């Protein structure tokens, strides 16, 4: 099973990171806390401090399987 998170437009990275950590997961995301987690960040390439290990934001939206349990924030 792949653990994924679905963020609606308007969710900001500070809140996204906190929600993901509550599930003991990490996510490739932006630096500044008020950047939107759904939208321009990954559309601009998706740089992240953890990109050298997990890839840029651009490949991370790809949900490669249909057997997942999304958590909607």
């Amino acid at each position: 099973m792949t653990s994924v998170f679905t963020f609606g437009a308007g969710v900001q990275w500070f809140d996204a990171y906190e929600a993901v950590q509550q599930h003991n997961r990490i996510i490739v995301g932006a630096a500044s806390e008020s950047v939107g987690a759904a939208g321009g960040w990954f559309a601009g390439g998706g740089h992240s401090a953890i990109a050298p290990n997990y890839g840029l934001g651009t490949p991370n939206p790809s949900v490669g399987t249909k057997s997942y349990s999304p958590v909607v924030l």
Partner: protein
Amino acid sequence: MTADGNHVIANPYSNQDLFWALRGGGGGTWGVVTSVTYKTHPSTPFSSASIFVNSTNANSTQNLLTEIIRLTPSLVEQGYGGYGGGSTEQIQLFVISPNVTAEQTQATFLPLFEFAASQPGLSVENSTTVYQDFWTWYRSLFTNSGDQVGITAEISSWLLPKDTIETDKPEDLAAELLKISGVFGY
């Protein structure tokens, strides 16, 4: 939401061309993204290193930036990523990696810290720390303060291939970055 008013799903199975274009194609270019589903990864500790420098000596600033650039390919190979930048008066760099121990981080950065301390006109603060998870590191740097966000600036960006740094002289790249008026990011 596409320009024709349709709310569609873009993923590897449907609207593949839109999905491909959205990932790096620029904000708002292909429609309005109303939600995104992201892959996540298991939580893990992160080792961090940071250096903050105020400078009254432009040569020392350039020398330090040269050393940071020279170190960058090996940092990326060790899994470090993060943020840095500055100007002739100030340099900062803060990075994290999930794959290294505290001892390894100290060993990797000690030469850089010692170099900074050896340069005239630099006031240096540096540290290495292990954080129990990404969120703990993130909260140490960022707050959800609700302060004004955004600044008036012209921005541009380049991805620098490893070969470019290794083949070209790091000191030349440092000199070019420091010619940028205002503040550069690295």
